[in-house]
């Protein structure tokens, strides 16, 4: 605490209320990403509102149509409307991304809290296991889990979650160690607070804050993993309109009908990029950098 560091006048600190100009300072990329994510959430919640056509409706009459006003993204080899399928696919990707991240964060939080607050042999044991798990690439881990428990959307979700757990557990543990060293945990000890109460009242909430931000970053990578697993044929079975699966199906037609594979690919990319941009912005906000 040196007196002159507070003296370098920080204009942001001195003028708290500037709602209008503050809005203007949000980077354009973040605004765009917010719109993309909002649109995807809308797609996931009310797909028929945006794409009224049935994504499963076969029509050999209309097979392999190029994008046109009637079929904005064209049709596939079985005459299904790609636009409709892409819109309906949002719910798979988003629910797998969010669900897997939720599970991974929850379990990671528990493991990290136990390891970080117990310390000693418990900590050592947990962390060595996590080191070993982290040595495998996440996608490889997920494939191994799917190989063990079988294919399907739910299993893909679990597989991705399991592969992500070690990363969150490690972050939580290091955060717990920081918080345990902090002045306010010591202050609680001096006041005569019980360890278990301190853990719940001070350590846990101050650990979760940074974790929530990090998990928004994780959603993007979980969506990417789910698309990858589906592409490899380990995810939901056809004719489910899942982006990774659609990519795999469109692969054989790339030269004849590029739109079958390209549009799901664009959507997957947009989703991952947007959630990552939002996550990074949230992280910058919570670090006080934006």
């Amino acid at each position, binding site marked *: *605490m040196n*007196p*002159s560091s507070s003296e*370098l*006048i920080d*204009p942001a600190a001195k003028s708290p209320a500037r709602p209008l100009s503050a809005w203007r300072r949000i980077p354009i990329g973040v605004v765009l990403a917010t719109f993309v994510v909002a649109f995807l959430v809308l797609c996931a919640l009310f797909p028929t509102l945006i794409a009224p056509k049935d994504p499963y409706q076969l029509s050999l009459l209309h097979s392999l149509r190029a994008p046109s006003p009637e079929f904005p993204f064209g049709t596939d080899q079985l005459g299904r409307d790609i636009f409709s399928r892409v819109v309906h696919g949002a719910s798979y990707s988003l629910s797998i991304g969010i669900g897997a991240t939720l599970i991974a964060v929850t379990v990671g939080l528990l493991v990290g809290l136990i390891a970080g607050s117990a310390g000693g042999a418990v900590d050592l044991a947990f962390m060595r296991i996590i080191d070993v798990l982290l040595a495998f690439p996440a996608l490889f881990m997920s494939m191994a889990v799917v190989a063990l428990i079988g294919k399907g959307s739910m299993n893909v979700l679990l597989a991705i979650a399991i592969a992500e757990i070690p990363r969150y557990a490690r972050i939580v543990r290091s955060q717990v160690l920081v918080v345990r060293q902090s002045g306010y945990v010591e202050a609680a000890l*001096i006041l*005569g607070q019980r360890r278990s109460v301190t853990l719940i009242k001070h350590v846990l909430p101050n650990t979760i804050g940074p974790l929530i931000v990090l998990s928004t970053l994780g959603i993007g990578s979980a969506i990417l993993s789910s698309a990858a697993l589906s592409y490899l044929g380990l995810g939901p079975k056809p004719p489910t309109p899942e982006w990774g699966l659609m990519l795999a199906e469109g692969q054989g037609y790339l030269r004849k009908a590029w739109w079958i594979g390209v549009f799901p690919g664009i959507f997957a990319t947009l989703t991952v990029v947007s959630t990552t941009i939002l996550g990074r912005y949230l992280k910058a906000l919570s670090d006080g950098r934006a």
Partner: protein
Amino acid sequence: MSLLTVEDLKVSFPGTDAVRGLSFSVDAGQCVAIVGESGSGKSVTARALVGLAGDNAAVTAKSLRLGEKDLLRLSPSQWRSVRGRDVGFVLQDALVSLDPLKTIGSEIAEALTQHVSLPHVQVRQKVIDLLSSVGIPDPQERIGQFAHQLSGGLRQRALIASAIAASPALLIADEPTTALDVIVQAQVLDLLRDMKAKGTGLILISHDLAVVASLADHIIVLKDGVVVETGTPERIFTDPQADYTRALLAAIPSASTRGKKLALDTSSQALSEPSPRADKPALEATSLIKRLGKRLVVDRVSIELRTGETLGLVGASGSGKTTLARLLLALQSPDEGEVLLKGALWSRLTESERRRLRPRIQLVSQDPLGSFDPRYRVIDIIAEALELAGLPKNAWNARATELMAWVGLSDQHLPRRPRQLSGGQRQRVAIARALAMEPEILICDEPVSALDVSTQAQVLDLLDDLKKKLGLTILFISHDLGVIHHVSDRVLVMHAGRIVEEGPVEEVFANPRDAYTRDLFAAIPRIPEASAFRQHNLSRSNHVGSDIRPISA
């Protein structure tokens, strides 16, 4: 011809005016001191003078001239040639300002070769010369060391060496001694005095009037970016015109302020002498030893904290004061020896046995903000303590109001967040939380060292009031001898893990027996008495060019 002429300097940031019209000039061999508290604009001034005020700062002036150069018209690349060659800049924190990946030798060599073309073989010798000129012992050896391997004082010297490497005519030092303890501070001030005597112009920026007293030829007192008062040290110290300057001078705790209020607005009525009650010692430690690796951080320390007294513990940074406090609070356990609370077991208890006794001994730390859960408002902080103190929930509001009143805050502060409070207010909240536990003993570990003098004065007064009102026993830890002298009944001097001196405060200060204590006391910067100025002036009139003509603010 002045080295530097500043006329009507204004610096503003979006939404705030940091400096509002500052004028002065510096001649060769002279020192202008800019004194003020946090937020007064003194550091911003220093930065503006070297073109580092920042992108969002608007710097204007009627005139800002360094010799022949008009500083207002410099391009960034021209600034780079001015900084280092014409103006040297020394910052407060040498550990942050020195590159951790470079040896101090290469750091200084870089500053040197930037501005002076020198054959490669001569650079090393020149760096060694610079290091020895700033009083770094064994420069041949130090040249290959990194910043973290040096002590605070040596680091600060290395930084000064790099600032003067290209022999600038003007040196700006922003709080150059604030992070240092008194003995090292005295050495650095001596070094600056030598440079001044050799003809370097000096701008010294400090929050501490006593520090600038011995060095400055001209003092500018800044408050909220406005010049409150300017003048020679003699005028400022003997006949301050502005109320603010008077308050600043009065707020400096020292021997002469003992038993008096420091903050001016509460008048300087004498307070009744404390009367320590004869009883079992409130806290007693017997030959405590704490090791860190092979080093003894606390070396056979025995202390007795008598009920009702204020015991001052003074020592330089690294002397083991904080470790001792942590042992007394049973936050760490000693390797040998034990601590007794009211004659009963304390350090040997298990934490769960100790928990019910914890409220009796509370801590006020140097960093109140760090001791608050960042998510908590003031009310949550107080409420946690009240809950642990066993108060029924329906009594919380009344008790919180009472506690806030005790520490000089009001109900309006309860819903605020600590970050929205000033440093002094945060410390008041920390004190309120400690008092909520109805403690008998308060351990204050550098409670005012992060505060401005006038805030410091208020907090010291508050602690004194509360002590009398509640009959607290206080262990007061500080590196600041003036503060210790002001608050303590008895004093302990700690050096390298040991207690080297112990006794009633007047006795120890009047007649220190230990050699280290004597060095420590000799190094305290003092504001000279009026009579000293007359002599000083006589000797100074022999010097050339000692009168500087400030352009009126």
